[in-house]
């Protein structure tokens, strides 16, 4: 059946016509054979609508509260679904210096540097592993594969990070997670599937291994690398656990730690934690929601790009990894 490879997310515009129409035919035929009864249909609709609402409604509430005017938030007991007007005081106060602004910069920096390094090192290792017949190819591949089966454990990992002198450095948020064996395997399978003819042709033309990697391997796998890069990026942005473990100095906290302290644990944000551009501090609820929104927005921005590709990426990983 060709539907999986043909057109899972509408990313294969070059798909051949006849193939598609048989797939559509098959679906139509199947539809005729087993048309759903009305009970089944309405149950399904209701369940799926509720499921989607459970995801969407909280976000609407959070965004609405973060932009609602202070008195409306106070009067309605801390939660607003329909803001009377748009008031950005909360955002202004957390973004004009202070704890949240600094954490935001840390998170952006970690995500940018980390994603770049992860992509580079992952692609390099994956390329090396895709070159069968080279020295130590097999043992290296086994080391990567075996690392997927176990995790070294919390305490030993912490001790290693400490031994490397990374505690309380920004690098502790990047280096331990810079290469994911799983992603290496996914990228490698892309490299392996590149047609040999192109690589041989480049070799005949006198290209060095490095040139083949830079000029052929990377450009031809751009889509795959983009997806993996987005995955890495989301991970760095979301990293909370490593910060909890390795960063004792609150001045170096990334956004997720700030989110935990001031939203999950509900610590009060006083004037010293807020920025300077506030005359009257907005209610805590509004500030909390604004922090939450700021930490979600980057994910929402990359989401459409992620979404276009990931089912393919995940499948490759699951099937070939």
């Amino acid at each position, binding site marked *: 059946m060709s539907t999986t490879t043909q057109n*899972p997310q509408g990313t294969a515009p070059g798909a051949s016509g006849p193939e598609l129409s048989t797939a559509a035919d098959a679906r139509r035929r199947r539809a005729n054979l087993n048309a759903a009864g009305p009970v089944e249909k309405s149950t399904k609709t209701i369940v*799926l609508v509720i499921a989607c609402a459970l995801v969407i409604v*909280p976000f609407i509430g*959070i965004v609405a509260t973060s932009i609602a005017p202070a008195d409306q938030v106070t009067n309605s007991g801390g939660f607003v679904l329909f803001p009377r007007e748009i008031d950005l005081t909360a955002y202004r106060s957390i973004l004009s210096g202070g704890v949240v602004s600094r954490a935001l910069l840390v998170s952006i920096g970690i995500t940018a540097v980390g994603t770049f390094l992860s992509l580079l090192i992952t692609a390099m290792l994956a390329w090396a592993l895709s070159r069968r017949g080279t020295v130590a190819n097999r043992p290296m591949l086994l*080391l*990567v594969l075996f690392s997927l089966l176990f995790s070294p454990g919390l*305490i*030993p990992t912490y001790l290693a990070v400490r031994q490397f002198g990374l505690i309380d450095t920004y690098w502790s948020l990047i280096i331990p997670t810079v290469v994911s064996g799983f992603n290496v395997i996914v990228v490698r399978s892309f490299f392996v599937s590149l047609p040999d003819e192109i690589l041989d042709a480049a070799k005949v033309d006198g290209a060095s291994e490095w040139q083949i990697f830079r000029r052929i391997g990377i450009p031809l796998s751009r889509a795959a690398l983009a997806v993996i890069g987005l995955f890495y990026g989301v991970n760095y942005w979301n990293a909370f656990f490593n910060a909890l473990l390795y960063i004792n100095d609150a001045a170096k906290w990334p956004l997720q730690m700030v989110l935990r302290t001031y939203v999950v644990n509900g610590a009060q944000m006083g004037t010293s934690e807020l920025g300077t551009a506030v005359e009257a501090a907005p209610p805590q609820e509004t500030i909390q929601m604004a922090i*939450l929104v700021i930490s979600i927005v980057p994910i929402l921005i990359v989401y459409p790009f992620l979404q276009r590709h990931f089912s393919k990426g995940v499948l490759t990983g699951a099937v070939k990894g």
Partner: protein
Amino acid sequence: MAVTDMQSPPTTASPPPARRPRPSLLRRILRDRTVLLLALPGMVLLIGFQYFPLLGNVIAFQDFQPYLGTDESLWNGLDNFRILVTGDPAFLNALRNTLVLTLIQSVMIFPVPIVLALMVNSLMSEKLRQGVMSVLYLPHFLSWVIVVAVFQQMLGGSGMVNNLLRSNGLPTFDVIGNADLFKVLLTSQVIWKDTGWAAILFIAVLAGIDKSLYEAAAVDGASRFQQTLNVTLPGLRPIVILLFILQLGNSLSVGFEQIILQQQAVGIDASEVLDTYVFNEGIAGGQWGTAAAVGLVKSVIGLILVLAANKIAHAMGEEGVYRA
């Protein structure tokens, strides 16, 4: 360029390499040096943060003192493991919570994505299908901190739901911070966050099931339910078994970040699991040796479960995770 230069002197015109006597190791290393250099940073990091830490497990057999380090700390044999058998109440509590959560997760959480996949798959319109899934995937990409915060804002004492109830004069209920409901809360959070994501694989597999099987079944007079039972579910079987095995390996890891974020609200009794026990006992509490011992046992059990499950899968004639 350098690569071709290295190997070319004896024969210039692309000879089959297998024919020639195998070049010496040093020669091969020189020949493949670019590839090796490309692999170097990744391998160093992998060894440094996956394999090297394994050595750190020796502190499970030590009375480890951080300021002395592994070399100088005194060995104490199996003392740290004694906690596993002496019935230490804190440890037993963590173990009990872990096992209960494992059970809940296998029974309550595992089937949900499959049901979702079946529902979404039977939607007729491709557009609708994609729309629904786009919404349901989303929470997977949010961090646990965000998910926990969202749940608090929705269900907490001053959250949206209670707000709504209060303004309508109805009794309120606080799910967050209620120790009795903690496991229910954890379960619903996992379902909210990852059901859509987990369903991707099932949907892809469903799309790959040969449609003529359904037609054949329908011709033979199978009802829709019978078709699901006899065509769809057998089609899903290999992937279900695969995922179940993978999950088995993680069965003693029941959501570390998620739990540690919410421990404060409900107390240790209801929330401590093995992972949080290792963290609280070791890194926060300074009982390094004990924590490492518990962690080590947990990792070993996890590995054994994966290997055993894989064997069982083979015995049942399934692919399993890997072939050894």
